[in-house]
């Protein structure tokens, strides 16, 4: 290493320092603090503050409310992301074929995604309204109890979530579709590929990377789902829509069990990291395959 290179490296480290410090202060420090909290029984209202080791985790392992929240979270994530994926992709491909009014379609598509989630929540609250809701009206005045029936509440929330975030997947895919050179399609046509074969063998492989990224974002978001449940059902009926983050919120902020609530937070963190790691592995492999 020459002196010039060493100097460069030094400057590089100095310039990196603010980012590292910020990351440390904003991410690592609170993360470690939550981990430390989760090993304590800490309830400020009662002046309780002592170290209990991993006992909150032991409790969670046999806590039916926790396992129910885990199940709700995983079902919500899997179903809503799968639907967003399918619909988003379909919409992107449809946009590609669209000749007229493409801009208008894109603008309309952006609308649900741009709305603040509480507004979305309120909108759906009215759509699902049992007696004055548009949905029941369209179903011929049916009295379907969308948000108060154990079997229906979670699907109702999933529909709201899909409506809200499908455009995100669609726009990401559409942006990629736009960059596919027309010559490739021309070549496919010359080779005699039909519409289905073109999508399957040309478009989809080219979309693979962007789809994986969209899925990664959406899965991580869905695993932390909170606002829709909070606004629409409060986790009910009978906790059938209580996700892990809702459970964590209730324990942490509503009932101030800082240690116990933090333990749930740590579980959510581990879950999110595991899923992210899985996606990154798949992406790396896809990268290798194309390289």
């Amino acid at each position, binding site marked *: 290493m020459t002196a010039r290179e060493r100097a460069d490296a030094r400057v590089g480290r100095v310039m990196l320092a603010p980012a590292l410090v910020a990351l440390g202060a904003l991410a690592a420090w609170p993360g470690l603090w939550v981990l430390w909290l989760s090993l304590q029984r800490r309830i400020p209202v009662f002046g309780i503050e002592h170290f209990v080791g991993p006992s909150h985790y032991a409790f969670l392992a046999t806590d039916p409310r926790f396992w129910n929240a885990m199940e709700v979270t995983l079902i919500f994530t899997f179903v809503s992301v799968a639907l967003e994926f399918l619909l988003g992709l379909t919409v992107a491909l449809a946009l590609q074929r669209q000749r007229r009014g493409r801009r208008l379609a894109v603008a309309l598509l952006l609308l649900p995604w741009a709305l603040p989630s509480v507004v979305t929540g309120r909108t759906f609250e009215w759509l699902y309204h049992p007696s004055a809701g548009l949905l029941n009206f369209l179903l011929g005045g049916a009295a379907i109890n969308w*948000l108060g029936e154990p079997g229906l509440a979670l699907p109702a929330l999933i529909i709201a979530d899909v409506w809200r975030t499908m455009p995100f997947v669609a726009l990401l895919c559409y942006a990629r579709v736009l960059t596919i050179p027309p010559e490739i399609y021309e070549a496919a046509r010359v080779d005699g590929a039909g519409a289905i074969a073109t999508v399957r063998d040309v478009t989809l492989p080219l979309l693979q990377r962007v789809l994986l990224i969209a899925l990664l974002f959406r899965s991580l978001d869905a695993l932390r789902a909170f606002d829709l449940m909070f606004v629409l059902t409060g986790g009910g009926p009978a906790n*059938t829509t209580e996700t892990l983050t809702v459970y964590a919120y209730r324990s942490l902020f509503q009932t*101030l069990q800082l240690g116990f609530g933090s333990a749930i937070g740590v579980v959510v963190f581990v879950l999110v990291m595991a899923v992210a790691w899985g996606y990154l592995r798949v992406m790396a492999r896809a990268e290798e395959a194309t390289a």
Partner: protein
Amino acid sequence: MSGTISRVRPPVSKVTAAQYFVVRVRRAALLVVVAALAVGCTGGGAESGPVTLVFKHAKILGPADPVPGLLREFERRHPGVRVQAESLSWNSDDQHQFFVINLEGRGAAFDVMMLDVVWVAEFARAGWLLDLSPWVARAELDPHFPSTIEPATWNGRVWALPWLMNVGVLYYRADLLAKHRLEPPRTWEALVDQVVRIRAAERDPRLDGVLWQGRQYEGLTVNALEAIWANGGRVFDKNGVIFPEEERAAGGLALLRALIVSGVSPSWVTAADEELSRRHFGDGRAVFLRNWPYAMDLFQAETSRVRGRVGIAALPGRVGGAVTAMSSGGAHLGVNRRTRHPELAAAFVRFLASAEAQKAMTVGGALNPTRMALYHDRDVVRSHPDFPVVHDLMLRARPRPVTPAYLMLSSTLQPEFSAALVGVKSPRQAIEHARRRATYLLEGLQ
């Protein structure tokens, strides 16, 4: 890129490190002196110089906000004092979170707080509230409704003064009951009977029986407790045993479940809150409604479809059960323990809770005072003709369990109550699970 960066040198300063250090230390010392002076001034400011009290309260809904007028009146009587009112979101969860974060963080950015009645014991136990006993004699609370006093005086000290009163009541369609020659029902059995008769005679498939709040939130706790109380059950006994009369508690939940199964209540009450059920009843689509007194003004509004056709009565009890039980609600006023003006803050709270201030609030808005005498005051009754009736109902109100762990208890009970209402668990199972969880959580918390 990196090559160009490495060539950039910081401009050489003429100030040496030592000189720089001295300048910094001097500046810091000056700052400390200024800060100390500032603290000294405001610390002794209760007697001299202008003082600002900050009052944090929930948004006051209603035709006119009477709070600003009251603040000006207090300022007039305490020259040199300014009261700044800051309103929080209407959502009670948000308010609680705001207070908790600021009080636990030892913030003194506000002096006086409007507190939901179920938070008083919690905040007092946490040491966030100033003990008002030096300023407020226990007898000063006597003119307020009895159910407001237990929360205000948790553990034998005065922590807060009652300000706004609420009670769960039964609204009924007076026109329908009169048409079928019925009196407001005294028991749930009679209510079910009346619903069946009225609906059979009216032949209106869009007319529901009784509406209440069964969504999984605090309102569900209130509704379920009222049913459990009506059935002779309790949440705690003297020794802290949860649901000591297990069968009676389960019977209360079974009553609510039966209303849904039999169709006397529409199935969507399991997703209903106060406003959802209030609107449906206000559209003339139900015979009975359990709600708080605020709804009366809306039913009697000029644009209301049920104007002049609504009556108000006690919530029903049960045949052979205990006396009827209606939950109280409302707000108290407390003082931040870290206030710099305890004397003034206490005076302000006493002023707001005074008969004069409560009267001004009631006449000017749709709020229910906690002072019993006001319900028979001539000026008040003129603008609120139903107040004498409401008074008798409020007199019978019962507080939810007064414990610092109330929110923990309630959020543990809610999913179990909800499970019983939607039929996921039998009422007995739900009570059993609720008891087990609550016992575990509350262990060692007193």
